[in-house]
């Protein structure tokens, strides 16, 4: 583990370096407070620090205050080294943001024991961050497929619509549905259905670029958004993605299953800036058309020309049987 030693006095610094190296630490050594802050501000900088109280440029308490003002970086456990002994000074040091203090000259065993306390605190922090990240992932991702969930995909789509309108670019929105998925569940069971959904999700995610995004819209429906997509190539790209599922059978515990998908596609550039619900309704209509045309195909939602009447109100999903 990396540890920072900041002391302007060479003899004490060397003594510390050696004691810490013997204890198995990777020592980063500096001579003043400014250099200490620079080291502690690095992304992969030390997370344990021994700071002398009196130093040129910036003293130990000032370094502690500066480190504590940041909120975005990982926690740094800081121990102030002091030959100052009064209670007032101890309080001042701890109030500046130090976690602990050691009086010079230090006792090697005490130094190591206090640093082990620091390591325990850092380990605890790592576990908390890991748990928070895990919860954040669960809040934004579908548990079965690990794709973005509906809420997260709506947020991203909203941002993408604003961005593509602002930059006068077009994004492609695809609503994708697995054909006859109900039959898989009914004949082979839900666990095979789950296997199918996991594999479809994997193939869809593998067929897009890193800056596109794929989410599970619900049931066997997925949403794919291709950012900054040239309208001339959008249908071709969507077909490639669609065929990434149908070209090869899906291996399941009950044997290989050949499946197809139906896609509805919409190019945001053709529609201008419209509410997300309206665009989703239009792309859903296109998907419905693909199902009505015999499935295993792609239909595009074009905006009506002035002579055409507007599209009918959406049929609620619950009464649409397009499986």
């Amino acid at each position, binding site marked *: 583990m990396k540890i920072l030693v900041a002391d302007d*006095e060479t003899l004490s610094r*060397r003594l510390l370096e050696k004691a810490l190296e013997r204890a198995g630490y990777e020592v980063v050594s500096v001579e003043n407070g400014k250099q200490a802050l620079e080291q502690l501000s690095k992304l992969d900088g030390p997370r344990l620090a021994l700071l002398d109280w009196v130093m040129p440029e910036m003293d130990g308490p000032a370094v502690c205050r500066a480190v504590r003002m940041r909120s975005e970086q990982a926690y740094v456990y800081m121990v102030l080294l002091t030959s100052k002994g009064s209670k007032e000074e101890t309080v001042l040091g701890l109030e500046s943001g130090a976690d602990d203090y050691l009086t010079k*000259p230090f*006792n090697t065993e005490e130094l190591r024991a206090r640093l082990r306390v620091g390591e325990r605190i850092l380990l605890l922090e790592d576990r908390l961050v890991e748990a928070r990240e895990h919860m954040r992932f669960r809040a934004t991702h579908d548990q079965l497929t690990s794709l973005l969930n509906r809420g997260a995909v709506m947020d991203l789509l909203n941002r993408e619509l604003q961005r593509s309108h602002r930059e006068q670019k077009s994004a492609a929105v695809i609503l994708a549905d697995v054909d006859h998925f109900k039959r898989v569940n009914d004949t082979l069971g839900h666990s095979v259905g789950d296997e199918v959904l996991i594999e479809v999700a994997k193939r869809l995610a593998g067929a897009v670029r890193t800056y596109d995004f794929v989410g599970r819209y619900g049931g066997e429906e997925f949403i794919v958004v291709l950012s900054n997509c040239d309208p001339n190539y959008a249908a071709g790209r969507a077909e490639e993605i669609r065929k990434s599922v149908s070209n090869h059978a899906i291996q399941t515990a009950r044997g290989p299953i050949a499946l197809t998908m139906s896609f509805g596609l919409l190019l945001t550039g053709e529609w201008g800036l419209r509410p997300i619900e309206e665009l989703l309704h239009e792309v859903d209509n296109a998907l419905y058309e693909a199902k009505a045309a015999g499935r295993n195909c792609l239909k595009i939602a074009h905006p009506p020309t002035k002579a055409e009447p507007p599209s009918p109100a959406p049929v609620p999903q619950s009464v649409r049987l397009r499986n």
Partner: protein
Amino acid sequence: MTNPKQTLSERAWNHAELAERVDNDEELLRELLTIFKEDFPSTMRSLESAIAVPDSKSASRLSHTLKGMLSSLGAGRAAAAASKLEGLAALGENASLKEAFAELEREGASLLPELDAYMSEVRR
């Protein structure tokens, strides 16, 4: 060479204290003594100049540095003299600084021969 008849409290340098601090690493101990022999005289000269001005802020900082190196070395008496000087300088007691400096010099003068004696002893 250190006079064996000298008691521990009479000695300017507590070798055992430093040896324990370096886990009896003789090589490190010699390295630290070499650092001290280079840094101590130059810091003393800077301190003397600061007192002559008088610049109590610099005098306080330099006394603090000396106190740190002396206490790390195990030179308790000299560290106490540096601590006294630091306290006086921090209070701006410029009139007392020269006398306190002279005391620190005396402690330094009794410390250096002990270090030299040890160095020549381990070289043999």
